[in-house]
Each structure stands twice: as structure tokens, then as C-alpha cells.
């Protein structure tokens, strides 16, 4: 199974290699044709520029958010923060800047509402008139004292202060609401490009003003930019890393070229087929080519290493190819299969881009397996390959010494390993689940720095939106409901980390004051229901286009939307604040007001929590499947079970190391266990299969078998692990945090797994596998497979 060794099998491999060598050109051209056809699907590849694609349709936080948007209005937005160098917003040139942005922002793609301090509908009283008008008249020249007056009005207005103007009035913002139809995938990018053109133009026209852009439209667009950056920067780097590694280990130009051909074919076919299948590209799935290349290279390295070793022993090219295929076909198939299982298990993730990553990578790994079997032998036949210098894996004295060390120190290593596993596993609990989508982007993204600027100076984009239901039609005018809403707003404003609360009750209070000749005594909620309803009617009647209350009140005026903006807080604190708010509503308001808040950032706050469960389930299923496959491959339930330990432990230990260092798990980390399982299992497959061969066929005792396993696959394991670790470390250079975190954690898992396979598994085998020797299974024995390497 692991290594087909029966003579008939050997004959079949030999016939296969004969065929490929004879028809090498035909096979090569035919395969290239098929690969080109597959890769041509690349033209259908679609970049998904919508952060909502992260969430499945049935995600409860997404559903809550969509429900809220259907009751009120869609809330895709751009916040254009205007920072005057003077540090004073209420200066004629700055007001003109904000005014012009406000007017021109209506022309932005999908824009349906624009709010700023200039078009704020300021209501005030003059005798018996209610005057509702733009706060700032752009056609007027204001005297300095009038500017001070405007500043005082704006800072006294809860709807403006800390939302559209800062406490010190040193920065101000224009809020643009876009209603994206969500019919094309580039809507957000179209809007973002137009916003950037507008701001560049404004910065030119009004020197001394710096504009910063944030909001969900810029977020969606940044996801797109992150995908493009990953593909254009990491993939070329990955080529360099792999080629250098290949040259280093194979010591052969032609070997490197063959490896290159295989990885190019695998990665391009996978991306092309993704295009044919309509799998969209998002930042997480844009790491697929890197993952595929990393995994694909291992197949050809294994085959080529044996090929060169055999040629060095004096075999002809064809004989060496046959020998290499015969020895490696089983392990390569098995490792490809287990890797694919781990990748496919990503489909259980709640986050669609990770489903896509798993599926694209599975296609790539499968393609790599097929191309390695079909294209590698013809290429070997065509290229003038010579035995050349010894490859690294043959000079394995150090590895043999390592084996001796492990045998000699087995008790100590077993204890050390057990303690390390227990200790590091205990550290797993130190991780907290934390997804702050702003921090997905490193500081090379304008979105990150601009959003940080906005949060530090004006207002963050971490929000919670509550739809508060009065339980009756027209009930938003019910004084007792308004008092409850107001009390909730008051309570929220007292909470640490709450930056701003947007509530309809502030509008009611202002209107009540306006109706009583602007007497500050009357800045309070109306006491009668009819009065409140009629104020609202009057106010709505006097609002201009786009500045209506439909985003705050539902159609039958039974519920109102409250928006809470928080400072830059962790997802942990966000979830805590959410829980506290829900608890407050339950304790202090009637049942119809109990609700669950929704927002973009709450979706992300819960994403890793939701995902960790599905990831663990995925990992469990993958692990079970892999154990069954290994049990069958090793023809032993016992060794199938033993193989679980060196595969499960590294994931636990890596998360433990992560807990001691980073301490924060995001959704990119959460999927690592699932994905890495199928990869790390390869090492133990190789080690165990050699060990068992020595025990069963060579009739060796446990120590002898460990020695044999070290000398045959020890160096190959180190080489392939090195390549895998290097490949995933390339991902850490991604400017997109999820990919970088996933890459780093996977690299740690792979590194720990190598340690576990070399330092812990052998002592464990020597401890558990006590019987002096296994009954030799004669049907398996094969003289050609003596410890010859």
C-alpha cells in the first residue's frame, strides 16, 4: 500500500515508464495542451470586492445585519475625514472644502445620502416659525464671531459632535451612504476609485487640507487590493524561494527546471479551473497559488531525489525513473490524499473565502500529483540529466547521528516531549478569539492608516446598531418608549469605550425646544404621544432630499435605529459590550425592546468564534479519515492510532506557542489546524512506513527499525519540511493579516511536527512497540527494498 513492492506492481511501473519514455513528446505536448485549456479558465477569474462575501448566507450576524438594513436603509458608506492644517474646522476655507465635498459627493457612484456639518439640517425657532436649513450657508461670508457661533452650535449637537466633528473641532467628516445594488463584484471598487478622484481633486484645490478615507466601501475595496497585492508580490517571491530550494537540494539545473514546470502547471491549472468553476478570488483564496506551489514541489522533489540517488548508484536514467516511481508512488499518493482531505475539510469553515482556498488548493494538489506522474518522467527522458554531484540528502551523516542520539536518549526525549505537549497544550487557553478587521490590513494600506487616523481624531468604524421596537404602529412617539430609548442611550454613553450614540431621542428633544422658542428648559422629550408624532411630521415635512429619517425610523413608525460607535476596541471587548447592552435591555425595558445588535464589525467580532467550532469539527473529521487511511495503509489499527499523536500534538503545541506569544487568534489562524493536519501527516507517514518495513520485512528490533527509518527518510523529511516551512513563511510577508497569521502559524505547526516526528515519535515507538519483533509478513517482503539507500 504505502510502497507498492510486489513484483507485478514493479512490472506495471516499469511498463508505465517504458510507455512514457517512448511517447515522451506526445505525452508532454498532450499534457501541456490540457493544462493550457485548464489554465485558460483564468480569464473568468473574478475578484470579489465585497467584505460581505466573508460570511455565508446563513451566518446569524449577517442575517441580523441584512434584516436591519431591510427595515431601514442599506448602510454601505464612506467617511471622508477632513483634517485642516490650521487645526480649526470653522474657518472659511475649511467650511468651503467640506461644502464642496458635500455637494460633489452626491455624484459618487451609488451615493444615496451625504451628511456633513455644512448640510446638517439645523432646526431652530424664530417666533412662531420653525426654520430648518443647512447649518452652513455656503454662499455667505461669515464674520469671525459668526464662525464661533457655528462652532458652538455644532459642538452642542449630539448628532454632530464626535460623529461629524471632533470634540475640539479640529477635524470634521463627510459621511456618504452608498446603496450598492450588489449585482456586480466591482461596485465597491468603482465607488472607491471615484471617491479617491474626488479627494485628490479637493486636496489640490484646497491646499492645507488632508483627507482620510474610511468606511465599509473602502474596506471592501481594500480586500480587493489585498488580493491583487498577494498575487502580484507573493507568487513571484514564492518562485524564487522554491527554485533556490530546489537547486540547493537537488544540485541539478534540470531537476530545478522540471520542478518549475510542475509547479507552474499545477498552480496555473488550479487557478484556471477555479475560473471555470466560478470560484472568486478574495484575499484568503489569493494565497492558494502559494499554498499549491509549496505542496506541489514536495512531490517532484521526492521523485527526483530518488532518481538522482539511483542514477548515482549506477542505474540508467530509465531504470532510475522506474525505481523512483516504484518506491515513491505509494507515499506520494498517500500524502497527496491526506493533504487533500485536510484542504477539503476547510469546506466546513463558516468563512467562504476559506472554503474557496481549500477547494482551489485541493484542485492544485491533485493536479500536482497527476502532473508529477505524467509529465515528470517524459521531462526526465527529454532533458540531458546526469547523475551529477551528490544531493544533500545523501550526505546524511548528521541525520544518522541524530538517529543514534534519539535512540540513546529515548527515555529523556519521551519525558521531555510529553511535558512539552502537556505544557504547551495548557497554553492554548491563553489565546483569545479576536478579529478586528481593520487590523487585517497592515500599515501599507491607506485604509488602515486612514481608519486609524479617523478613530484617533474623530470616530471609529466599530459600531453596534440596535433596532428598538416599540411594539405598536406609530409607537416611536410613545413617551414611555422614548424614555426607555433615552435611558438606554444615557446608559450607553456612560460605558467605557463608547464614543458616540446616535439616537432619535436627541432629535425629539431638539424639536421640543424649537417649538418652545428655543428655550433650553424645553430640551427634553415631549410628554405626550400626539405632540411627539406631530413634531416628527412637521420635521419630516421640512427635510430636503436624501436627508430624511428613513434610515432611523421604519415604515410604520414602530421602531427606531440606534447606532453606537465605539473607540478602537478588541473584538473581545466588543462582544462583552454587546452582551452587557443586551442584558441592560432585558433588565430595564419591556420585552418588545429586547434585541440583538448588528453591524459589519459585529459580524467580524463573531467570525472566529463561529469559525473555531466548524474548524475543530473539520479537523476532527480530517483526523479521523486520515487515521483510517493510515490504519489501512499500515495494515494496523495500532499504528493508525499511534500516528494520531505526532499529528495532533504539533497543532496543540503550535497553538500553545501562539498563546504564549501572540495570544490572539483570528479567523486565519482558526483554520490552520484543519489545513495543516493533512500536510504534517506526511512526515509521520514516511517515517512510520519505513519503520514498519524494517520491522516487518527486515525483521529488525525497534531500535534497529528507528535507525533504518532515520537513515532512509530522515534527511528527506528535513528537506521537505524545510520547503514547506519556507513556503508558508512567504505568506507571512502578505500585507493582509489573515494570510500572514495563517502562514506563520502553519509554519510553526510544520516545524513542531518535524520535531515531533524525529524526536518524539521514535522514543514513543520504542516504548510502546515492546514486542521484540513483529511476525514477518512474507507476502510483503521484497529483497529490492533492503536498507539500501
Amino acid at each position, binding site marked *: 500500500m504505502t510502497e507498492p513492492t510486489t513484483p507485478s506492481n514493479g512490472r506495471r511501473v516499469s511498463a508505465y515508464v517504458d510507455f512514457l519514455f517512448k511517447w515522451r513528446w506526445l505525452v508532454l505536448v498532450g499534457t501541456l495542451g490540457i493544462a493550457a485549456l485548464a489554465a485558460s479558465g483564468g480569464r473568468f477569474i473574478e475578484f470579489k470586492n465585497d467584505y460581505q462575501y466573508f460570511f455565508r448566507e446563513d451566518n446569524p450576524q449577517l442575517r441580523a445585519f441584512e434584516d436591519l438594513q431591510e427595515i431601514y436603509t442599506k448602510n454601505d458608506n464612506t467617511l471622508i475625514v477632513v483634517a485642516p492644517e490650521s487645526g480649526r474646522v470653522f474657518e472659511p476655507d475649511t467650511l468651503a472644502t467640506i461644502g464642496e465635498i458635500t455637494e460633489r459627493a452626491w*455624484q459618487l457612484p451609488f451615493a444615496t445620502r451625504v451628511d456633513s456639518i455644512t448640510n446638517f439640517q439645523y432646526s431652530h425657532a424664530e417666533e412662531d*416659525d*420653525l426654520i430648518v*436649513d443647512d447649518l452652513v450657508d455656503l454662499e455667505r461670508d461669515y464674520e469671525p464671531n459668526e464662525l464661533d457661533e457655528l462652532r458652538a452650535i455644532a459642538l452642542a449637537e449630539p448628532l454632530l459632535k464626535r460623529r461629524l466633528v471632533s470634540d475640539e473641532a479640529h477635524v470634521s467628516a463627510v459621511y456618504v451612504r452608498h446603496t450598492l445594488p450588489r449585482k456586480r463584484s466591482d461596485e465597491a471598487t468603482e465607488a472607491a476609485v471615484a471617491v479617491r478622484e474626488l479627494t485628490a481633486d479637493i486636496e489640490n484645490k484646497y491646499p492645507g487640507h488632508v483627507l482620510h478615507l474610511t468606511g465599509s466601501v473602502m474596506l471592501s475595496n481594500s480586500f480587493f487590493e489585498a488580493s491583487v497585492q498577494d498575487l502580484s508580490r507573493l507568487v513571484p517571491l514564492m518562485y524564487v524561494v522554491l527554485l533556490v530550494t530546489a537547486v540547493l537540494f537537488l544540485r541539478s539545473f534540470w531537476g530545478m527546471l522540471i520542478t518549475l514546470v510542475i509547479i507552474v502547471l499545477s498552480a496555473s491549472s488550479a487557478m484556471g479551473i477555479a475560473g471555470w468553476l466560478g470560484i472568486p478570488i478574495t484575499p484568503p483564496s489569493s494565497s492558494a497559488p502559494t499554498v499549491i506551489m509549496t505542496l506541489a514541489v514536495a512531490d517532484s522533489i521526492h521523485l527526483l531525489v530518488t532518481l538522482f540517488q539511483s542514477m548515482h548508484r549506477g542505474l540508467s536514467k530509465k531504470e532510475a525513473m522506474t525505481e523512483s516511481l516504484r518506491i515513491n508512488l505509494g507515499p506520494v499518493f498517500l500524502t497527496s490524499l491526506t493533504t487533500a482531505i485536510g484542504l477539503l475539510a476547510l469546506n466546513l469553515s463558516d468563512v467562504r473565502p476559506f472554503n474557496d482556498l481549500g477547494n482551489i488548493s485541493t484542485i492544485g494538489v491533485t493536479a500536482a500529483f497527476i502532473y508529477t506522474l505524467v509529465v515528470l518522467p517524459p521531462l526526465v527522458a527529454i532533458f540531458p540529466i546526469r547523475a551529477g554531484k551528490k544531493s544533500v540528502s545523501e550526505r546524511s551523516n548528521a541525520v544518522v547521528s541524530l538517529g543514534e542520539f534519539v535512540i540513546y536518549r529515548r527515555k529523556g526525549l519521551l519525558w521531555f516531549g510529553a511535558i512539552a505537549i502537556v505544557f504547551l497544550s495548557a497554553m492554548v487557553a491563553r489565546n483569545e478569539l479576536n478579529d478586528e478587521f481593520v487590523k487585517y490590513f497592515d500599515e501599507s494600506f491607506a485604509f488602515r492608516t486612514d481608519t486609524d487616523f479617523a478613530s484617533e481624531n474623530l470616530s471609529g468604524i466599530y459600531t453596534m446598531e440596535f433596532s428598538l421596537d416599540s411594539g405598536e404602529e406609530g409607537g416611536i412617539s410613545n413617551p414611555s418608549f422614548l424614555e426607555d430609548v433615552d435611558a438606554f442611550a444615557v446608559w450607553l454613553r456612560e460605558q467605557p469605550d463608547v464614543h458616540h450614540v446616535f439616537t432619535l431621542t436627541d432629535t425629539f428633544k431638539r424639536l421640543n425646544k424649537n417649538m418652545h422658542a428655543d428655550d433650553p428648559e424645553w430640551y427634553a422629550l415631549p410628554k405626550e404621544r400626539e*405632540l411627539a*408624532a406631530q413634531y416628527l411630521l412637521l420635521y419630516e415635512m421640512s427635510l*430636503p*432630499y436624501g436627508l430624511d429619517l428613513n434610515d432611523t425610523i421604519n415604515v410604520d413608525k414602530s421602531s427606531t435605529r440606534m447606532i453606537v460607535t465605539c473607540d478602537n476596541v478588541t473584538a473581545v471587548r466588543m462582544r462583552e459590550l454587546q452582551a452587557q447592552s443586551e442584558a441592560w435591555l432585558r433588565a430595564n425595558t419591556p420585552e418588545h425592546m429586547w434585541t440583538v445588535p448588528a453591524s459589519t464589525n459585529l459580524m467580524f467580532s463573531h467570525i472566529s468564534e463561529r469559525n473555531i467550532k466548524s474548524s475543530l469539527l473539520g479537523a476532527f473529521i480530517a483526523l479521523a479519515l486520515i487515521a483510517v487511511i493510515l490504519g489501512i495503509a499500515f495494515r494496523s489499527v495500532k499504528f493508525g492510532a499511534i500516528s494520531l499523536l505526532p499529528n495532533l500534538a504539533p497543532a496543540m503545541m503550535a497553538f500553545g506557542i501562539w498563546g504564549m506569544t501572540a495570544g490572539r487568534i483570528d479567523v486565519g489562524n482558526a483554520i490552520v489546524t484543519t489545513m495543516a493536519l493533512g500536510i504534517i501527516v506526511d512526515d509521520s507517514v514516511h517515517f512510520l512506513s519505513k519503520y514498519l518495513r524494517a520491522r516487518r520485512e527486515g525483521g529488525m528490533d525497534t531500535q534497529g527499525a528507528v535507525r533504518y527509518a532515520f537513515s532512509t527518510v530522515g534527511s528527506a523529511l528535513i528537506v521537505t519540511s524545510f520547503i514547506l516551512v519556507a513556503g508558508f513563511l512567504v505568506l507571512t510577508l502578505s500585507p493582509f493579516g489573515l494570510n500572514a497569521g495563517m502562514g506563520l502559524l502553519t509554519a510553526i505547526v510544520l516545524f513542531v511536527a518535524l520535531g515531533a516526528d524525529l524526536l518524539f515519535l521514535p522514543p514513543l515507538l520504542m516504548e510502546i512497540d515492546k514486542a521484540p519483533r513483529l511476525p514477518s509478513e512474507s507476502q510483503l517482503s521484497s529483497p529490492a527494498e533492503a536498507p539500501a539507500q
Partner: protein
Amino acid sequence: MNRFVALVLVVMLAPALAVAGPAEDKGLEIAKEADRRDTGFGDTTADMIMTLRNKRGQESKREIEIRTLEVKGDGDKSLTVFHSPRDVRGTALLTYSHGVKPDDQWLYLPALRRVKRIASNNKSGPFMGSEFAYEDLSSQEVEKYKYKYIKDDEVEGVACFLIERYPVDKDSGYTRQQVWIDKDEYRARKIDYYDRKGQLLKTFTPTEYEKFLGKYWRAHKMVMVNHQNGKSTELIWSNFKFKSGLKDSDFTRTRLTQVL
């Protein structure tokens, strides 16, 4: 500037600068004819039920009565009385509409027992939370728009003129409106509203026209669909009465407080 360049510029820009070409004239003529056919009704009253629907199919109803007095040489005067929702029963809005000049408006709030003048020159927002903007419902004076005839077209098999009109008021929520006016009776059959960025925002469809006094056509059903937010509003009209003898004195601030 070089004189030659100036001359070339003038020649090139002339067509664009021309305010009224044949298409503009024809558009204006059609609008004037429609307006002419609707003059002389004197006064009218009608009841209306307004139904708001959001994307999830939730509904909300409002009952309104509207009294209109035709004013020669200026915009009409109208009195809008709210009967439901219960909370706003008895609230009444008095409007003196004008052509290009902002309308004068007073609102009577029974709960406050006061008449308040609404001093706001940009009343393009939604009417009572509906998809109708105040500017869609207010008296459609000819001079509120510039016009252009586009082509002959059909709506539901009825031969129509398709004209475009462009709001004169800079605070309008629209850049243009496409209006289908039937050739037989000069009734609006459909209006498409384009928002400030030139994108289709809403479609207005009046149906179930009935002729009163052998001359004046009134639609019993009007639907406004907002294509961008998925909401819609339906108006069902009934009890049309004409020439019931309303006078100027029925449209004053004092009358506002006695509408019920």
C-alpha cells in the same frame, strides 16, 4: 484672447448655449397644453389612502384629505388634512405654492394648538416617510421645469409623447425626469425620476383615470417605486369633488385650526 480663437469658441459653443431649440420648444408646448387642459377646475377635494411598503413587505397606511383652490396667475393653494395615523389626526398643512419661488407653508399641530410656519427652502424630502417627495406631490407649475421633447413612444399600448423635464430649483433631488404624456388627453402615464448622479431613482405610474366635469382627468391609483431602496408607496384616491365653492377664506391660517 486671440480674436480668431474667440470666434471659433463662440461658433463651437453656440449650439450648446442655445436655450431653446425645436425639441425644447415642442417639449414646452406639450407641458403647456397639459397644463391648459387642466385649468379652470376652480376647486377640488379628494381623499387619499397612502400605503408604504418596505423591502420586507411591511406596510403602513396614512389617510389624508386634500382640498385645492385654483389660483389664477400663481400656484394653487392647498390644504392637506391628516386623518390617520391616530397620533397626527387633525394635523393640517396649508400650502401656497408658487412657480419658481419657494412655497409658503404652515402646519397646524393640534397637540400644541399652534400654527407653525415651516421656513425651509429645500422641501425635496419624502412626504410622510413615503417614496413621494414633497416636490412630486406639490402643484406642478409649468415654470418649475425646463423641457425637451424626446420622441413619440408607447406606454401599455397607449401612444405617448416622451418628454424630459429639468428642475429649475437647485435644491431639487433630481437632475431630470422623463415623462410619458398620452397624445389623446395629455395625461401623465409614467414618470421616471433620475437622481443627482443621473441614476434612475423612482418610477411613478398613475392608473384608473376618470374624467370629471367632462374635462378633468384624475387617476384613482398612483404607485411610486424606488428602484434603489426597494421600497414603494401606493396612493388610492376617492371622493373627488369639483367646484364645491371653496373660497380664499377657506385657505387661511385661522381655517387651519378648524379643519376637523
